[in-house]
């Protein structure tokens, strides 16, 4: 098991099933009913280890989740979720919302350092079962426990946390409601959903319908919901006590990222449509295989969107501008999009002022949620953007309530600056340094499409005086390689330009392949511009090493096997027309019947299997593709906490 666990002299035997220790069986009762002294909880916990040296896994009888909901009175301000929180797990791009929602980093910023460690150690392995709601649980020490709203819960959980038992027993006890099997992911989520639903119902009056109403996808709702759940679980005063066991439970629990929104689900798509800002055009000829992906919104929406500018009063103009740029394709490339989005949020935060009777944290989170949903409508988020949003929301959630509004805003803006600086700008510098060591004199380097990191590497190596040639491979329909080619040639590199079909021809002179990535998934699959997989495959067949250059903030814990499960659809008309070649006009005059039979597919991304990759160059160093989940797991907390 985990090395961090204390090794015991006596092996534990896991008892599965209902096990009533010598303590009162209604263990979880006190938590739920908010009655009963805290110490009633302790006996079972402390008793169990004492009673028998074998501390079994105690699985409390399943409680009805509605019990808990009484506890959370008006706690959760669900920001403008008009529809009942049906599925917590829905969301087209949930940047591990479970992480967002459930992983509550140490509550206070002040007590950050030591409290987090303390939590870890004291909690040991608080496996899940602490639904986000009951975020009020927290570690024994290091926090100012000022129980305001739900003292019982707080203390109850606290008491549970006392004994640093590092087994699932605690989990069972501490958990308010769920059967604490190690693998009840679904159960936990269901509990979460139900409690959220009830909480939402309870706090509906108070819920501020923010611009989140324009959100089309649940993704935003989900993160906002979960995000709000933990911090708002208790009152403002207790908002500092964010689930102590949550972090532990988060990590152990291997938060499974909730599945993304599937667009072939009629009910969800219908709701999304009602909320959307843009006209949802029905794809003319939607490909059966890709019905689960949102259809492309092309630049023809631009005038429509422009005309709606004054109606979208809740969207900050900076965000609106970025959205327009996404829609038209002026801004493309993972890093560029991410930076533009974060800077737009910065401006929005600077101009933000808390409405009366609302708390900054909640309101701002919901506003950000609204912005994100607008951006998603313009163009689906990339995974790196999702990670950045997750970071921002966690920073907002961790704002100590004692800060004044201006201080909080300044803190957030500086956080965003720090993120951009550390995770993107400096990371790029580190990557360039690492990768330049892999370039020798006489090398022939092949690159595909246009990746900003690879461009930086090539220019840097050229400045260092290394003698090498570059082969730029390009493909339709984006033809991004031409721009890269122009910039490289302007700087004096000798280049060869070719198209994707010719890679078998050119590969026998190539010594290294440098590629960029939009994201790298936990099974080592590289999710990148369409065609990258073909380049990597041919390079592998010719035994040419393939290096992927990617910042670590783009890593994601999702897994994907092929390019069809998740992708982005581009403009189908870009396939039928070849710019600059008027002779290619075969598809101009088709009869209607013929048009029915013909479908045009324009994929934007594809998934390269990890076997084709030799090495990934990140700001954490040069790692093999199998180490990506390690980085995700070990360093994710770090970048969320910064």
């Amino acid at each position, binding site marked *: 098991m985990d090395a961090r666990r204390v090794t015991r002299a006596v092996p534990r035997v896991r008892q599965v099933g209902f096990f009533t220790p010598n303590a009162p069986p209604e263990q979880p009762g006190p938590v739920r009913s908010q009655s009963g002294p805290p110490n009633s909880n302790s006996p079972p916990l402390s008793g169990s280890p004492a009673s028998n040296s074998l501390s079994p896994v105690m699985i409390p009888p399943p409680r009805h989740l509605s019990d808990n909901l009484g506890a959370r009175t008006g706690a959760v301000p669900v920001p403008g979720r008009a529809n009942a929180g049906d599925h917590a797990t829905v969301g087209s791009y949930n940047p591990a919302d479970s992480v967002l929602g459930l992983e509550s980093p140490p509550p206070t910023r002040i007590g950050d350092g030591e409290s987090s460690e303390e939590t870890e150690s004291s909690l040991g392995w608080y496996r899940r079962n602490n639904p986000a709601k009951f975020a009020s649980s927290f570690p024994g020490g290091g926090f100012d426990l000022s129980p305001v709203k739900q003292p019982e819960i707080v203390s109850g959980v606290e008491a549970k946390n006392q004994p640093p038992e590092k087994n699932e027993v605690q989990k069972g006890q501490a958990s308010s409601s769920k059967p604490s099997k190690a693998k009840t992911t679904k159960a936990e989520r269901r509990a979460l959903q139900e409690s959220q639903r009830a909480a939402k119902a309870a706090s509906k009056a108070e819920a501020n319908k923010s611009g989140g109403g324009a959100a089309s996808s649940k993704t935003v709702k989900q993160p906002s919901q979960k995000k709000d759940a933990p911090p708002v679980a208790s009152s403002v005063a207790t908002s500092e006590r964010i689930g102590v066991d949550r972090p532990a439970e988060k990590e152990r629990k291997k938060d499974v990222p909730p599945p993304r929104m599937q667009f072939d689900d009629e009910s969800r798509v219908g709701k999304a449509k009602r909320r959307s800002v843009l006209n949802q055009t029905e794809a003319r000829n939607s*490909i059966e295989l890709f019905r689960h992906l949102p259809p492309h919104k092309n630049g023809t929406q631009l005038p429509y969107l422009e005309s709606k500018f004054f109606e979208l009063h809740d969207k900050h103009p900076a965000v609106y501008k970025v959205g327009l740029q996404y829609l038209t394709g002026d801004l493309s490339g993972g890093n560029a999009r991410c930076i533009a989005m974060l800077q737009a949020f910065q401006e929005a935060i600077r101009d933000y002022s808390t409405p009366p009777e609302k708390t900054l944290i909640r309101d701002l989170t919901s506003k950000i949620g609204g912005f994100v949903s607008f951006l998603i409508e313009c163009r689906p988020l990339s995974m790196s953007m999702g990670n950045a949003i997750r970071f921002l929301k966690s920073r907002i959630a961790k704002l100590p309530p004692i800060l004044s509004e201006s201080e909080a805003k300044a803190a957030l803006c500086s956080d965003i600056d720090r993120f951009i600086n550390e995770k993107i700008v400096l990371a790029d510098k580190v990557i360039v340094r690492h990768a330049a060591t892999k370039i020798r004199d006489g090398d022939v380097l092949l690159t595909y499409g246009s990746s900003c990191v690879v461009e930086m590497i090539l220019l840097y190596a050229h400045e260092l005086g290394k003698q090498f040639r570059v082969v730029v491979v390009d493909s339709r329909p984006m033809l991004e390689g031409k721009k890269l080619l122009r910039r490289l040639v302007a700087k004096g590199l000798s280049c060869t330009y070719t198209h994707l079909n010719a890679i078998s021809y050119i590969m026998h002179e190539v010594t290294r392949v440098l590629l960029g990535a939009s994201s790298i998934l936990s099974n080592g699959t590289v999710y990148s511009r369409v065609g990258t997989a073909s380049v990597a495959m041919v390079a592998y067949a010719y035994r040419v090493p393939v290096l992927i250059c990617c910042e670590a903030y783009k890593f994601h814990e999702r897994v994907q096997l092929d390019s069809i499960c998740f992708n982005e659809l581009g403009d189908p008309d870009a*396939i039928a027309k070849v710019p600059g070649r008027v002779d290619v006009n075969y598809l101009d005059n088709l009869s209607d019947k013929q048009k029915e*039979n013909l479908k045009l597919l324009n994929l934007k991304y594809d998934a390269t299997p990890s076997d084709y990759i030799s090495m990934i160059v990140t700001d954490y160093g040069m790692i093999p593709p199998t180490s990506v989940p390690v980085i995700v797991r070990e360093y994710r907390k770090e970048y969320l906490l910064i």
Partner: protein
Amino acid sequence: MAGLNLSAVSDDEDDADRDDRPVLSAAAVAAASRSTLRPPSLQTLLEDVPDSAAVPHTSSSGGDSEGKSKSADKSSRSRKLKHDVIEAVNELIQDINTCHEQIAEQAVEHIHQNEVILTLGSSRTVLEFLCAAKEKKRSFRVFVAEGAPRYQGHLLAKELVARGLQTTLITDSAVFAMISRVNMVIVGAHAVMANGGVIAPVGLNMVALAAQKHAVPFVVLAGSHKLCPLYPHNPEVLLNELRSPSELLDFGEFSDCMDFGSGNGAPLLHVVNPTFDYVPPKLVSLFITDTGGHNPSYMYRLIADYYSADDLVVQRRPTSGN
């Protein structure tokens, strides 16, 4: 690159020819003996009739006087030779025109129901193949990769939809992404080499590698006239053609980089635009020719049907002074 391909002139004709010959050189004797075992090759034909053979060879250089000086029977022999050659060429043309039907007849054996077929570029053989299957009421869908930079895939897609097939047009970059959902890859060939390798339109090596990775059968349709007795050594370079860079880059955009005469030491920008790709035999699952389906390792045998060992290399006749 192409060896001479001459369908077998019938043995009978040739024997009759030889009987008339008054003088037989040693080479001719050897040739005669060879000819009884195998269909005569152009080489043997020309050897057997050295004098009259010299006539067509040198006639282009205006050696008519020599021809006229020969006896009449030699001129009739040369006429017969010309006749034979012309007939053989006609047969070859006939073969080329009818190979599509013979190949398309086999479509029903390979395409069944609810299949997904991938192809790249455009090939008339493939078009006929798919349409034959469609006529036999097999249901299938076709993914056509457009095949930059000639974009022949657009043409094929248009033809297929005109004949009522469900077609999806994709870019070449999406081939790897889509191939996991494909049942079979069917392509045409430009030439089939002696080892079973294929000279195919550019991009097909990439498709063949992707098909191998996903265990999708890679089927090559080739009429037997595409067989070539050469063994591909360094095929990417020797058996390839490079086309104009204007198909990839607009000259106007990059004229400052591509003009070598600009004189300011600007870095050279090379543009590579090959026409063909070489697909090694281990990536090909099946060849479907007008004589049936074959393994790549068998293709060399078929060459013996169409080429004689003598014709594998066209040799220049030693100057005999005639």
